[in-house]
């Protein structure tokens, strides 16, 4: 889109939205949020970027093919479930560690890595759809 205002403001909006999507993703464990909704916010950000600067720019910016990102997410989610095998508990059992970094306890869990997997699947799959729709629109 050849609007100077939009092109100037788009990078700011996009970076804030990506940041917010990660915030929503991490917030999701105990409060409303999570991988799915976080992923959708990230897709919205990438779509805005695409409208402002073109699909090619987005493809270059995310480095990997969107479907490869979805595949990586699916793999991460599956592996988070399989991690339970090591601890002799059933598939998909939530496993927690509490490392203390700089005096602050940080709870990390396989639930979180699973949710990051969901985030990546949503980002990859929906971005793939959005980008190919935008490409069709440009012809």
């Amino acid at each position, binding site marked *: 889109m050849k609007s100077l205002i939009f092109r100037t403001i788009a990078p700011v909006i996009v970076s804030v939205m990506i940041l917010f999507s990660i915030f929503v993703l991490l917030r999701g464990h105990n409060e409303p949020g999570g991988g799915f909704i976080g992923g959708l916010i990230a897709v919205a950000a990438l779509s805005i970027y695409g409208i402002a600067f073109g699909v090619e720019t987005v493809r270059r910016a995310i480095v990997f093919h969107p479907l490869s990102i979805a595949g990586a997410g699916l793999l991460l989610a599956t592996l988070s479930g399989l991690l339970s095998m090591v601890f002799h508990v059933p598939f998909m059992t939530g496993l*927690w560690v509490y490392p203390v970094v700089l005096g602050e306890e940080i709870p990390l869990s396989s639930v979180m890595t699973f949710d990051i997997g969901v985030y990546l699947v949503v980002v990859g799959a929906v971005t793939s759809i959005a980008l190919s729709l935008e490409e069709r629109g440009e012809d």
Partner: protein
Amino acid sequence: MAVSSSPADLSAALVLQPVAALDWLVILPVAWCLAIGAILLMIRHKSLAQPLVAVLGLAALVALDAALLWHVVQSGPVTMVMGRWLPPFGIAFTVDLTGALFALTSAVVALVGAVAAIDDINVSGRRYGFYPFLLLLMAGVSGAFLTGDVFNLYVWFEVLLISSFGLLVLGSEREQIDGAVKYGFLNLVATTLFLIATGYLYGIFGTLNMADIARKAPGLQMTAPLVTLTALYILAFAMKAAAFPVNFWLPASYHTPRIVVSALFAGLLTKVGIYALIRIGVMLFPAELEQMSLVLAIVAALTMLTGSLGALAQSDTRRLLGYLVISGIGAMLAGIAIGGPDAIGGVIFYAVHSMLVMTALYLAAGVAARLSGGFSLSASGGLYRHHLLFTALSLMLFFSVSGLPPFSGFWPKVMLVKAAIDGGSSWLAAILLLSGFLTMIATGRVFLLAYWRPVEAQPAGVPQPLAITALLPILALTVSSVLIGLFPETLLNLARQAASTLNEPSAYLQSVFPAGGAP
């Protein structure tokens, strides 16, 4: 594992004993397919590595499913509850003999399909994602066979449906989109019906765990509308399985995709519908199913007859095979309508046979079309002269699908006919035999026209030799059909045992609720 910071003590709601390593076989087929599918998705542009990874992955899946079957034969139904929550609240994967047998056969079919696809699916098909879709389809199919939760069954149906859409439109030709729309529309209606029925089920029982439903159902027969519920499920699964009045999507779509995709669909998809019908109908609501047995028997008879008559009327081998799939579904429905361990054993045996043989038939049709230049019966001919081994294999498959000895199609037909006569419905037995006879004529016609008939004008050039990757899958499936036909004892016993577990699911319940405690 540190649970120290967790404020509430949840141990009463958790599975506390450690999970035996062998019990992981319950979930591994699904997790394995998802993981390999994800890896294939990430290396989509490496079109040479794709078939290699997929074939090795599916070979490992066959090994996993075989180990699972062995484990179930050794120690009865096995359960694993996701996320450690106790059933019925945790989602349970419970595998009994029926599920393990179906899962193993589907894995074999998928492996064979992946090998056949090396030849049939070109580089652009691979880039489009044939192999990732295949693996995700197998995740859905395996999940459907192994799960012990009704809503989870619905989820796996969705997974396999989405993957099958992807496979169906591989190539994006006009005809394929047309077939996919018809297929997609009717399947979405069926899935929605399934979902509505599941909501209704949850409203009645307050649980979705199959074992929990099975033990609660007898107590609710007088008060809850279980017959309505069963009817809804039967309609939904009959659509999926392509039973008579709701089967028009199958002949409208199965001839459009690549032949390997058709072969996989014919082997896998309709059988998932039959499996779900067995699981929900026979195991959960046997009394209600019996009340509808006459309706089911009539539907089964019409499915068989329309299937085999439809096959007689076709001149395109792919369409013809689509009707043969339907006719086989009719035979399985007949067994479900008759009921009882003998008939259900026959259904399970028939399903295993049908998965292997229908896949092989589609693959053979693909090879025949490549050799003689098309799927149309009026244009082809002369295969017998140049391709003796292939002709012999095809003839065996034709005999097998018609139910002639000594091939795998013979025994389940015998079991079903015997069960029908014992059950006092000789007319159904007569229709089973008639449909076999009509199938024989239909396949005989294919053999006469496409194989025996000499071609008037020889195609230019020397006849090309068959690639090993094209012949090997058909050879493997035909050999397995012959072996099952010659040595049916093992499978016969397994199918009977599986059926008796379904009819008397106490071992299944025991596996989910080990204490045997009252609800």
